[in-house]
């Protein structure tokens, strides 16, 4: 050890050059990782929420509410989903779906449409659970509000889809005399393309109250006609749907297949990130090996002299290994510190890649970098050590042959 440290200090420029190599490699990896992780995190955040939702229901050949109407006469309304009549569902289904592997959340949804004489059209009303993420991605969310406010606990408040509001010249605060009551437009919303889209939305409890006279089939336990489902990751959506179809084959599933491209993009990003890390690691090893080999060539005569004095190959190998490890450790330590400072500087000055990608110091990458660097140091020593064992002292001193 003493000799190794003396050796490192004696050839200070060579040592510094070697350490600088590790610093540059570490910095490079750290910065690339900080960017790729940010890109991965940001894009995954978006892609993970893309196509992670679907709805399930039981289709019916007749309007439930027509057949269920106590008077036996049609009320003109019906429970529906994706253009077909549906049956009411038992709320136990929510519990069963939530328990399935890969399901992040499941929420009840009550979607009803009724022909309105005044507006001369069918007006759909969706009863939602505003707290569920499954509702957010399948129906609408507070973030979709354009004007006004989102739903509150007030029993007569609704939000209207922008297209419906425009078609009927509705604005916030207007009163609608529909569904046998007075409903006040609290906000206008544009939920985009969603499988559970309706014209008007209200909290599910309120909708149950509004529809209690129309839906005689609403009873404790049967108070929804759609289950909104959110899965944890777009890449597993197909598996969850398949499993659901297998276990609950009476259900119909409607999903926008955007989970497929989203899943593919996520896989590509993940693989690219992995390949990039491997490539950088290989670069580090090649660089370290070259540094160690150069060092061995420079020290060849010196090592030959030591061999001629009786220094064993094992002792010299240990020194090469230790030298390489010390250099790589110092390099990776300084590299990490420097990388941290550079990222800190960039962030405090709001410097971003392409003005969008933020550099994020990955603390979790430090042990990985240390291990990579030390592994690089070990691998880098292998070739010089093989060379050391293969060459005789005289050849090393005189450059024989």
């Amino acid at each position, binding site marked *: 050890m003493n*000799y190794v440290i*003396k050796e490192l200090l*004696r*050839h200070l420029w060579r040592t510094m050059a070697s350490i600088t190599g590790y610093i540059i490699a570490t910095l490079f990896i750290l910065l690339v990782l900080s960017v790729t992780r940010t890109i991965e995190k940001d894009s995954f955040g978006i892609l993970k929420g893309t196509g992670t939702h679907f709805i399930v229901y039981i289709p019916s050949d007749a309007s439930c509410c027509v057949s269920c109407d106590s008077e036996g006469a049609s009320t003109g309304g019906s429970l529906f989903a994706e253009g077909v009549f549906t049956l009411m569902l038992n709320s136990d289904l929510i519990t069963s779906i939530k328990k399935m592997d890969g399901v992040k959340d499941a929420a009840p949804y009550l979607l009803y449409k009724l022909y309105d004489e005044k507006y001369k059209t069918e007006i759909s009303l969706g009863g939602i659970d505003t707290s569920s993420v499954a509702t957010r991605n399948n129906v609408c969310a507070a973030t979709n509000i354009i004007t006004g406010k989102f739903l509150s606990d007030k029993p007569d408040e609704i939000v209207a889809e922008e297209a419906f509001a425009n078609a009927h010249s509705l604005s916030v605060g207007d009163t609608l005399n529909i569904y046998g009551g007075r409903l006040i437009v609290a906000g206008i919303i544009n939920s985009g393309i969603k499988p559970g889209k309706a014209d008007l939305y209200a909290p599910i409890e309120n909708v149950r109250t509004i529809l209690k006279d129309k839906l005689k089939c609403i009873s404790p336990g049967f108070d929804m006609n759609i289950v909104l489902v959110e899965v944890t990751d777009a890449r597993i959506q197909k598996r969850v749907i398949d499993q659901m179809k297998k276990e609950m084959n009476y259900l119909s599933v409607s999903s926008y297949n955007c989970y497929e491209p989203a899943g593919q993009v996520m896989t590509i990003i993940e693989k690219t990130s992995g390949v990039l890390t491997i490539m950088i690691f290989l670069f580090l090893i090649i660089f370290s090996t070259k540094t160690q080999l150069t060092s061995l060539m420079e020290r060849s*005569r*010196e090592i030959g*002299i*030591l*061999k*001629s*004095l*009786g*220094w*064993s*190959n*094992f*002792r010299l190998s240990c020194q090469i290994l230790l030298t390489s490890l010390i250099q790589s450790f110092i390099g990776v330590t300084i590299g990490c510190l420097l990388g941290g400072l550079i990222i800190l500087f960039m962030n405090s000055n709001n410097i971003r890649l392409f003005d969008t990608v933020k550099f994020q110091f990955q603390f979790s990458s430090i042990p990985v970098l240390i291990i990579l660097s030390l592994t690089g140091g070990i691998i880098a020593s292998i070739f010089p050590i093989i060379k050391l*064992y293969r060459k*005789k*002292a*005289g*050849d090393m*001193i*005189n450059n*024989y*042959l």
Partner: protein
Amino acid sequence: MSEYLIECISLSKQYIRNKQIVRAVDDVDLSISRNEMVILKGRTGAGKSTLLNLMCGLIKPTHGKVMIDNNCISELSDNAFSKLLLNRIGIIFQSFNLLPTYSVYENIEIAIVPKGLKPGMFENNIMSFLEQFDLKDKAHLLPSELSLGQQQKVAIIRTLIKQPSIIFADEPTGSLDDETAGEIIEHLLNIKKEKQVTLVIATHGNILEKFADEVYIIENGGIKK
């Protein structure tokens, strides 16, 4: 069992230079007894340094073998060969082969570091050698700060500090002036006399001949008495 300490049997070393085979050492048979002083004499390029390097195992022969104490040195394990070099063989190089970034003291010290001795145990020994060779005040200097004669003395101390029983010396006086060469020769003769070592010296000059037990002439890689 051979009575000789060192034996070279059909020893050859060939290498390729400019696409031509050079027979640096060609089928040499040589036997050296204990405590002998043997001179390998020849012109520059005759092959004496290569023969010396082959005898102490620093290079690998193309053919033949070298026996030391009835052991073929090319068949020894790495560890055993290192121990042989560490404990029994001392080599004095023509170009001294001192480590340029090490002080005089450190250059001597590295010869005994592998023996695993504690620093205090060899410090007195090194200083006593330096005193004996008039280099006590040069201990902290780098080789480049010494004269050629002083560098050669350091190389000899580095060899002697290991207390070897065989010393191979390649042109030990080759690059020295007459006065310094005489001094070095005196040291070598004293070593042979006091320490009972076997000396194998390669030289192109005549100065050492009169002290030798055997003188061999090396010519075109071959050997004759």
